[in-house]
């Protein structure tokens, strides 16, 4: 065999300084995570002592001390401590975890005890160097073999170890913080971090001279009065949120065909007070694994249609990434997804049947988001479709009520319906009309129609965002001139319904400006503020003529066409006045009470003149 083709086998080499730097400084996205790792190590140390020593009087505790003067953060526990061998085998061996090995042993003997241990990867301790330039650990093993030990490292490849004095079993980790991490010594910041990560850990955590633990010690769903505890937790942890409805979660039994398996799942989902489409969507959960916080705002666990819900879940089957700041999307993740979907769907169905008033509040509060997302899931869509209120030209109503008015046809416009005049324009076909100006409404209506054979969906303002259509005004010039001679700004357009002869259209802020001018003229504003309003109005370019609006004659209206084709003489004076005053009154814009009286007087006088 040709020697040059001989295969050689090599092993990877480790460049320790580089590896340590990556693990200590680049694995985690935030410095706060280092505090979590220290708390978790302290927690697991206490749990190990409880499991291994079985001391009846043992009361685990964790204590955090801040030393702002010297820039030190100190975390102590009265857990199992470490021997010199354990320090060498676990603390100083990257990737080997005492906790994981103990849990693996316990899984065969006591599942409950195994579940109390959190640690997994065996390098969380390195995160201490993310925030500290020097770490000192003083530990005494509860096994009583050997003296206490002092371990010290500045984060390079080596560490120092020497015998030390310590009476009680346990471990104290002392961190000399880097300048960039001194903010961790601020009491409020430190408390926020502890409560975020370790609120549910069963071991009390004390800070400085505090006599009460700063963590809750148990998740709210495990408390005796769970509903009240959850409500308080929501208010405390979700910026004073209040729940319209709460769903406690439970273990899910999975049918394997030949057998069943239990998927451990705890926590709760809740529906907040309201949401705004594209602005204040929810659909996210806070995730814990074995009571330790992993991440917030996880949006892939809840079904997409559930953007109006949020919650907190805790499940040991979820797998964190190495930094434990997010989740692996593996089979367990998918199993939890399915469980949440099923529990939420079933509970909402029960809510609709058993508590219709709460159900209605939920529908009102989250109508926009439900409209947007419900078509994503047929089951949910079927459940909610008849309960969502829509803005229509005849007020807010749900689709079954709307369809009673329209002979089983859904009419909609893409133009936002505001004033009565706009609604009339929208009802150009003499039917009630849905305001579909927000993007989610049309897909919802189309989905609704698809599931109901025979139901039609018709848009009434096709090809135009404006409901006034431009037309050739040549045939109407004489008529328009008649109005202009009377000091009325006039033009021609085509719109429906054809029975409406004319409308007056105003600039958007006409009412506000006229109101402000009127208030100033009447001296109704307190003196100094009148000056401020005056200064504002002086900067506004709108002329008085613009504020009076523009009369649009309807080219589709037979009356207008007839007038345009006629020889106009004095006898038409009353007709023109009536058209103008009716339009003025109908627009409802910019009118004072005096204007309304004047318009009615003018119209009445015109009618009388026609009668004589």
């Amino acid at each position: 065999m040709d020697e040059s083709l001989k295969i050689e086998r090599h092993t990877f080499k480790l460049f320790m300084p580089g590896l340590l730097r990556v693990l200590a400084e680049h694995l985690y996205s935030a410095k706060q995570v280092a505090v979590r790792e220290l708390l978790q190590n302290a927690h697991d140390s206490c749990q190990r002592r409880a499991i291994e020593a079985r001391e009846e009087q043992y009361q685990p505790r964790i204590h955090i001390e801040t030393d702002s003067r010297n820039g030190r953060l100190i975390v102590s526990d009265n857990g199992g401590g470490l021997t010199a061998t354990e320090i060498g085998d676990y603390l100083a061996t990257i990737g080997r975890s005492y906790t994981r090995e103990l849990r693996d042993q316990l899984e065969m003997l006591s599942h409950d005890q195994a579940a109390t241990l959190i640690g997994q990867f065996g390098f969380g301790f390195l995160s201490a160097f993310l925030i500290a330039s020097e770490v000192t650990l003083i530990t005494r093993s509860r096994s009583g073999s050997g003296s206490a030990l002092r371990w010290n490292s500045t984060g390079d490849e080596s560490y120092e170890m020497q015998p030390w004095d310590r009476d009680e079993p346990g471990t104290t980790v002392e961190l000399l913080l880097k300048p960039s991490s001194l903010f961790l010594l601020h009491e409020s910041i430190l408390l926020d971090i502890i409560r975020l990560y370790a609120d549910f850990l069963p071991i009390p955590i004390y800070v400085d001279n505090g006599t009460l633990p700063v963590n809750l010690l148990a998740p709210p769903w495990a408390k005796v009065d769970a509903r009240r505890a959850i409500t308080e937790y929501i208010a405390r942890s979700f910026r004073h949120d209040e729940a319209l409805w709460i769903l406690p979660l439970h273990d899910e039994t999975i049918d394997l065909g030949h057998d069943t398996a239990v998927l451990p799942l705890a926590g709760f989902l809740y529906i907040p007070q309201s949401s705004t489409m594209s602005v204040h969507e929810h659909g996210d959960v806070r995730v814990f694994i074995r009571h330790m916080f992993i991440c917030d705002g996880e949006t892939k666990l809840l079904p997409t249609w559930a953007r109006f819900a949020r919650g907190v879940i805790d499940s040991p089957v979820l797998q964190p990434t190495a930094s434990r700041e997010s989740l692996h999307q593996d089979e367990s993740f998918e199993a939890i997804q399915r469980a949440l979907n099923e529990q939420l769907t079933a509970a909402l169905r029960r809510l609709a049947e058993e508590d219709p008033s709460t159900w209605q509040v939920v529908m009102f509060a989250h109508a926009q988001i439900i409209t947007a997302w419900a078509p994503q899931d047929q089951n949910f869509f079927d459940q909610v479709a008849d309960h969502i209120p829509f803005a229509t030209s005849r007020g807010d109503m749900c689709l079954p009520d709307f369809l009673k008015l329209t002979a089983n046809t859904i009419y909609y416009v893409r133009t936002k319906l505001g004033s009565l005049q706009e609604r009339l324009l929208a009802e150009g076909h003499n039917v009630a009309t849905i305001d579909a100006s927000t993007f989610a409404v049309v897909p919802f209506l189309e989905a609704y129609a698809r599931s109901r054979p025979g139901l039609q969906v018709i848009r009434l303002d096709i090809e135009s965002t404006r409901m006034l259509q431009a037309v050739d005004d040549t045939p109407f010039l004489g008529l328009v001139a008649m109005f202009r001679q009377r000091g009325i700004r006039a033009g021609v357009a085509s719109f429906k319904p054809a029975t409406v002869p004319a409308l007056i259209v105003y600039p958007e802020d006409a009412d506000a400006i006229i109101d402000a001018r009127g208030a100033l003229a009447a001296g109704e504003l307190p003196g100094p503020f009148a000056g401020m309003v005056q200064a504002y109005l002086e900067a506004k370019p709108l002329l008085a003529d613009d504020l009076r609006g523009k009369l649009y004659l309807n080219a589709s209206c037979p009356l207008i066409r007839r007038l345009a084709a006629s020889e106009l003489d004095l006898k038409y004076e009353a007709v023109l006045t009536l058209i103008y005053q009716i339009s003025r009154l109908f627009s409802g814009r910019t009118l004072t009470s005096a204007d309304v009286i004047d318009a009615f007087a003018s119209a009445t006088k015109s009618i009388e003149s026609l009668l004589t």
Partner: protein
Amino acid sequence: VTDIWTWVYAYRDRVKRSGDAPRIVMYQYFYQAMHQTIDPVQKLALFEEGRARAESLGEAWWVLLFDHWRILTLLLRLQSVDRAREIAISAAVEARKPMYDALPQRVCIYDDLISIYLATDPVGYRRIIEDALTFMQRESQPGTACSFCHQEDKVQALLAWNELAAAESHAQAFVAMAQNDDHARARAFRRLMLIAATKADWKAALHYAVECEQAAGKRMDSLPSRVQAIAWKAAALQSLGDSRAAKAEFRRAIREVEDGQLIPASEYFDALSTYNEASGARDRAVMVRTRQLATLAGTGRVADEVRCRLEVCRLLAELGRPFNMESAAARDAASRLVDPTPALATLARLIDNHV
């Protein structure tokens, strides 16, 4: 009803008891905007949606309440004076109607107008601002939130008019008034801090900055006070020679602004610029001012813009660099002031000295 919050909470309890779903939802928009988001755009969207619901329900008082908070969000969180003015004028005109006589929030709408003119051109509009402050003195009841706003307006105006002794006296009175209200106390100490900084009394500025940050705590509504306090701590510490601590505070200020999604007010940029100047980094101070100009674009904060542009000219002059374009921009901005004369005189002095 003498206090707006008494009325708001009584309304909430009433509609919840009666199960009035549309009104519960309307209230919830208000609650969410107030307590559950720090994002100013989101806040504004929630207030606007709540207002639309109030309008469709015929809840005129609530419409005005939402308007007041839209104005504050635009003014304090988005720094947009122009948009705030449109709403405030319309709301002030609406508020004159007898139906609002008993609405406690009516006086707030007038106070909003004062804040808007203070933010636009406090020197140019001095006369009408003074008149309005005198009027408000009679209207606001001692011990209410309105009296705090009024007192703060007075201090802010006096500071803008460079009447520092009077400003300090009123600010001290504000601190005394706000003893039982952390949010108001933070605002009071912030004003004292700004007065001390204007006088370059760095020990006092540092003391008030610490007090301000403590009073602000982690409250969401005190975020603008907190970030200004941290920024001025950096400036004061640097001016007092403690560079290490100053740098830590400087970084913290920037982080707080980013985390809080805040568009900071001019006083924040003043602090960062002062910090950089005290560190001997004038070029960095120019960068700070450039960032400030980006936040001021199109907001209608004319006086702030003019002051910022003049500062850029001064810094460039001190660095020995040309500033022809910057001086033209400053002149253009000054022309939008009611009285551009003082600003143009300052600019002329800078150009003369530079030449």
